């Protein structure tokens, strides 16, 4: 572990690509997520309204002060249109501190999963239909997450899954298009393992547990939403330190 090769964090950063990405994004990204199909004012009081009304961190927020929520979803499959959320785990990160006290978890009841139930996905996440019987409705589960997410940026490993499923759930539940600011530890890890312009990291290296191993982070129980969220949070802290980004701001890490 001590002999692990570390590159100079700043070395060969893909500046051109960073610039390109920044151009494609409006710098004054709408705050408060008010770009849903319904305006915030028309939303009923509840978690969704709480989330939408809470001010999102500004894009110039330094990472040392950035509030994030590491999120992991366990799902029945990979397609947000067809597959369903089974469980959600989250843990807040304030700058470079993980707040374990804010960690949360919700298991979606089997009834909300439709006819298919958990099906074969149980072999991955270990949540059986029995266990899901004690769960809550999808609306309650997503509501719990949105409450925790208010004023925070989504942090996830391979965040497209989390964002896609969350947005699909919000459309289905409340007919709103959820606006999310996302930091993806898998994308960050691309910079860690392949700082050069032409370097193409092996997909294997980008997987959550391999990425963690690079930093000597401890083994956690995998495929449990809460522990996967914690795993992503810890990985994020390691990446920020490794890449020397403590003084950078949100723009340098968001997807």
């Amino acid at each position, binding site marked *: *572990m*001590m002999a692990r090769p570390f590159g100079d964090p700043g070395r060969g950063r893909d500046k051109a690509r960073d610039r390109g990405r920044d151009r494609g994004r409006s710098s004054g990204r709408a705050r408060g997520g008010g770009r849903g199909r319904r305006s915030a004012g028309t939303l009923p009081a509840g978690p969704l309204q709480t989330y939408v009304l809470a001010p999102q961190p500004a894009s110039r927020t330094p990472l040392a002060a950035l509030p994030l929520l590491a999120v992991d979803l366990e799902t029945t499959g990979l397609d947000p249109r067809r597959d369903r959320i089974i469980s959600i785990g989250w843990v807040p990160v304030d700058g*470079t*501190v*993980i*707040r*374990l*006290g804010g*960690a*949360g*978890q*919700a298991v979606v009841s089997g009834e909300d999963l439709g006819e298919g139930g958990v099906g074969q996905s149980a072999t991955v996440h270990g949540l059986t239909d029995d266990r899901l019987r004690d769960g809550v409705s999808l609306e309650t589960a997503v509501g*719990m997450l949105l409450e925790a997410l208010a004023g925070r940026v989504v942090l996830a490993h391979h965040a497209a899954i989390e964002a896609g499923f969350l947005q699909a759930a919000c459309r289905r539940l409340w007919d709103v298009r959820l606006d999310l600011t996302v930091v993806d530890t898998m994308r960050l890890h691309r910079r860690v393992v392949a700082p050069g312009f032409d370097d193409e990291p092996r997909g294997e290296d980008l997987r959550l547990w391999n990425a963690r191993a690079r*930093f*000597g*982070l*401890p083994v*956690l*129980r995998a495929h449990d939403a*809460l*522990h996967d969220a*914690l795993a992503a*949070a*810890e990985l994020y*802290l*390691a990446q920020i*330190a*490794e890449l020397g980004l403590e003084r950078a701001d949100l723009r340098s890490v968001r997807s």
Partner: protein
Amino acid sequence: MNVELTGIRDFLAAHHPFDLLPSAVLDALPGRLTSRYFRRGTVILSAGRPTEAVYILRSGAVDITDANGVLADRCGEGGAFGISSARDDGPSRFTMTALEDSLALLMTPEDFRGLLSAHPTFARFFDEQSAERLRAAVEALRVPGTGHEVLRTPLRGIVTRAPVSVDEDTAIRTAARLMTERRVSALLVTQPGGDARAAEETSGVLSGIVTDRDMRRLVVGEGMPVESPVSSIMTPHPITIDPDAPAVEAMLTMMQRGFHHLPVVEHGRPIGMVTSGDIMRLQQANPVAIVGAIVACQDLDGLIAARSRLPGVVRELVRQDATAAEIGRIVTAVGDAVTRTLLRLAEAELGPAPVPYAWVALGSQGRLELGLSSDQDNALVLADGPDPEAGLDPAADAWFAELADRVTAGLAACGHPLCPGDMMASNPAWRLTRSQWRQVFARWIDEPDSAAVLHADTFFDMRAITGGDLVDPMLAAVHRATAGNQLFLARLAREAVSWVPPIGFFRGFVLDRAGQGSRGLDLKAGGIAPIVQIARVHALAAGLPEVNTAARLSAAAATGTISRRRADDLRGAYELIGHLRHRHHSEQTERGEAADNVIDPATLATIDQHSLRDAFRIIKEAEQELAFTYRLHAVS
């Protein structure tokens, strides 16, 4: 909300001392923590600053250095730091630097103090009043035992096998086959169980005993049909013994009645059988019996055979609850008996000694702390001739040279290797008349800087094995001369502090003060030797006659040359290290290996590692005090 941070909870539960917290407290703990990551090289906490948290390392490694930049400890996974600053709400005495990329759990000082006040066993781990903690560790090391006097062991602890029994109706043939099959020479016969409820009370109750001898006499000799019930040849209502009776009682009963078997019966039902073989084996492990056998030996081979039972005795003593001090005394008693017997055998062949003499033990044997593998250190003190200045005449010296050669060679044959430093009576330098010894001691005491003094310390642990009346007055004079002799004591102290104990353990390695790790922990160099020397300085400073280390510390505390607290700490540390050493030796001899003092830290339980770390710190502090008292410099 059902939040199960089981990963964090299980991590805490797997590491001492958090494993001491009640389950419900552990469940709630993760929710009160935060987590931070430190890149290697990061200073997590600086000396002189208050800590914001107690840090518990989840991964990586952190170096803990004192205000002078000297490594004080190294913390790995599961280790905690920032403790004293958090507890006392004061500045940190140490600087904590990430040696590797590290992930830590942080507990607020308030929460930590809350745990300390609510959970005394948890708090004790962080208590720097170490004597009590070490005592607890030593207690925990010992398997709950039954008293170490072997023959007082209750039979319950000896009878381990279930009894072999049949009921009264069983045919003799079946019973005989069972005896052959189970390889027993006696069978218990019990009342049969029946359908009737009344039978329940008597079912399984002992009714008789059948032995090999009954089979031979009644079946083979008198032609009793083998189809007859076993009850027809059994001895009914046999003499039995209670499981709580001591082994010695079973032995006496069997001896007096000429039995070889004694059923052990509780509430009418047999729970086992004790045989004369069991008692014999017990006696084999009885140090008194070994000493008895040794003094009765008529030749070296017999002596070697008798002495070879000692490792088994030590194993048994370790398994039971003997203290390291007790084991040291027993091994020494056997060593002394071997020495006396060798002297007797040699004298029988060489004829009477030309002048009265004393055979003296030095070093560990002198201190009553002999180990199974200890080198021998000994010397001869000879009575002065008519002219003390003349020394011994050559013919007499030749006699003693021959005596010394025989005894030292005999000791080596019995398991105590020759001293590599040649501190033995066979060396003419250590075969002197009493007047010559007085001069030698005077030179050691008065000219402490001469080269001759080097390694002479062990002579101050002199104890007469024979001829005490010749030696004791001489030693009394020595002790009068050392008391308060600053120059001499400073030299001894310098020697003592030159033994540097390790810091502790890190990832299965012993961590020394240079931050280097090694695979073997030398219990002698890292613990026993420095404590022996520290105790020696304190005892000689007060002119005390004691030679045993624990006795020296107690006596020195009584005179005030060392604080009671420090004496207790050192005795606890000595007992702990001594116990680990005896355990190590007995494991080695059981495997048929030669006993040494080097243990692989990976074989030590975490709790032993923590206790040893305490012991090392106690030694270091005692050395620092010596260095201060005797104004030794260049001591870190």
